[in-house]
């Protein structure tokens, strides 16, 4: 009857081992890490200023001076890409974080308390989910007005229902588990039960959805910026870069391709990461 506790290292190896088993998941992790790290250390990279206008050099092709050429105002594309990463990624992560902050407690309470509250919340979510997410985000952003913050709010609103429904589904099954009844039997009040007993057991799919949600947020943010609703000049995100480059598709295709490729890479990375997390966190995964 000795304790079978393994060391922290051994346990970490077990858990991350499941993640590492999939090469795609690892690829996703690498992509995300590279992008995030690059975005994070951007100011320290000694790049040319992303906003420095040099009309003499406008629309130049990739060269040793400008690794990815320049745009129509002579700004260095490479540098703009990296600074754009900061904008796109941080906005997306913030939007998803906000959606989780609102959606998870909402789902917890609606699922646990049930009754009229649950019905009310679900019908509100139905209303939000009835519209295609991109269209809804565009509409909200248009109503709120241009700007990064408004864009983030729009994305968050559209992302909340997914988290709420996910959590609520988990809660509906967890709340009948024995340990919840046992907690009630010792007199624990509802908020203790919800946040100490139900939430930790419901959180796994939320983590996975978080990663996938960031992918969605990046696309939506880019779309908003593309039509001029998200990032406003001088701030520019990948979406704004695509908008600018779009006008010069024949003259300077790299202006569109570079940010588009990065959007693709980021979304792919987060999606693969999300799938890898799902494998890692699923207690029913077969272990080899």
């Amino acid at each position, binding site marked *: *009857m000795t*304790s*079978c*506790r393994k060391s922290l290292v051994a346990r970490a190896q077990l858990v991350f081992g499941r993640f590492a088993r999939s090469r795609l998941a690892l690829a996703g992790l690498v992509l995300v890490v590279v992008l995030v790290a690059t975005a994070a250390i951007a100011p320290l990279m000694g790049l040319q200023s992303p906003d420095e206008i040099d009309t003499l050099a406008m629309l130049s092709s990739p060269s040793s001076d400008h690794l990815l050429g320049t745009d129509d105002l002579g700004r260095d594309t490479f540098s703009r890409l990296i600074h754009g990463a900061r904008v796109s990624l941080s906005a997306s992560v913030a939007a998803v974080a906000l959606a989780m902050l609102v959606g998870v407690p909402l789902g917890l309470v609606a699922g646990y308390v*049930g009754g009229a509250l649950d019905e009310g919340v679900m019908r509100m979510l139905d209303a939000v989910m009835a519209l295609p997410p991109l269209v809804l985000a565009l509409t909200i952003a248009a109503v709120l007005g241009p700007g990064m913050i408004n864009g983030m709010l729009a994305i968050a609103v559209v992302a909340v229902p997914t988290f709420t429904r996910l959590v609520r589904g988990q809660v509906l099954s967890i709340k*009948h*588990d*024995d*340990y919840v*009844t*046992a*907690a*009630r*039997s*010792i*007199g*624990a*009040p509802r908020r*203790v039960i919800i946040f*100490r*007993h139900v939430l*930790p*057991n419901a959180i796994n799919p939320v983590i996975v959805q978080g990663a996938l949600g960031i992918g969605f947020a990046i696309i939506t943010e880019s779309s908003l910026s593309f039509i001029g609703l998200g990032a406003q000049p001088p701030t520019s995100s990948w979406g704004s870069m695509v908008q600018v480059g779009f006008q010069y598709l024949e003259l300077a295709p790299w202006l569109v391709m570079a940010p588009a490729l990065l959007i693709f890479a980021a979304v792919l990375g987060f999606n693969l990461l999300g799938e890898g997390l799902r494998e890692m966190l699923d207690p029913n995964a077969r272990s080899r």
Partner: protein
Amino acid sequence: MLEVIDLHTDLLLRGGTVRAVDGVSMRVDAGETLGVVGESGCGKSMLALSILRLVPTPPAKITGGRIMFKGKDLLALNDAEMRKIRGADISMIFQEPMTSLNPVVTIGRQLAEAVRLHQHLSRRDAADKTVEMLRLVRMPEAERRVHDYPHHMSGGMRQRVMIAMALSCNPKVILADEPTTALDVTIQAQLLDLMGQLQEKLGTAMVLITHDMGLIAENADRVMVMYAGMKVEEAEVNELFANPLHPYTRGLLGSIPHLELGSGADSGRKRLQEIEGNVPSLQNLPAGCAFAARCPHATAQCRELVPPLEQWSPGHWAACWHAAAGAA
């Protein structure tokens, strides 16, 4: 200490209303162990959950009766007052140790939860108390075990943790719902022994719910037998075993397998006695005595009228029209 008077708990199901607890009355005094016996589905767990008002309320509902504890009717209390009683005055031990503990919280924290809720101990005091409780339930290496998670422990150890949790605030009554059914017999014996000792030490009243007559014989002072949501017999334990009045009780006692040494062709090989038939569907209870269809002594009266619970000898009640005949 705890007295239940004419309790009714209904289950409102699509096919009809089921009277899971149908007019049950019982009492248990300090230091005493009341055994509640019956087969699966007879309402014994619902009885325990009803006492603590933990019945899952969408399908189930307590529709009548009183539960008197410390001079107050528990059914009349509001939520906040009931929460003060749960865990502190009346606590419950559940059947399945494998699922009664939160898998993502250490057992130390789960154990501490009860004392912190009711006795408002600081984290440090609660931690000390937790180790003390684990020692009380004879858990080896208590100080280390406090940081373990439930999946690090075997079923028997987890049940010890549950027992510790139930006892942590020195409750007056413990409702033990088949506490050892999911464990093997040697652990069963140890745990019941432990619970008996703690009961003696702390003067707790215990309601021991089980389907195992052997456990009842060893551990109970008085016994009540339930069938189809009703109490059909109640007596002091030795009296019940010596002189079962209700045909169902006799059936239960008769169906206990006996190991017999014999000689000759049928040494020790006897067919297990069974009670013929099945428990009637609770949604479709027949008129009259619920046991009539399976009873070898049933008469027309039994099939028409529900027999009331009557005292056939001092301290011995049975709900049977023909209990006297059985007593003979």
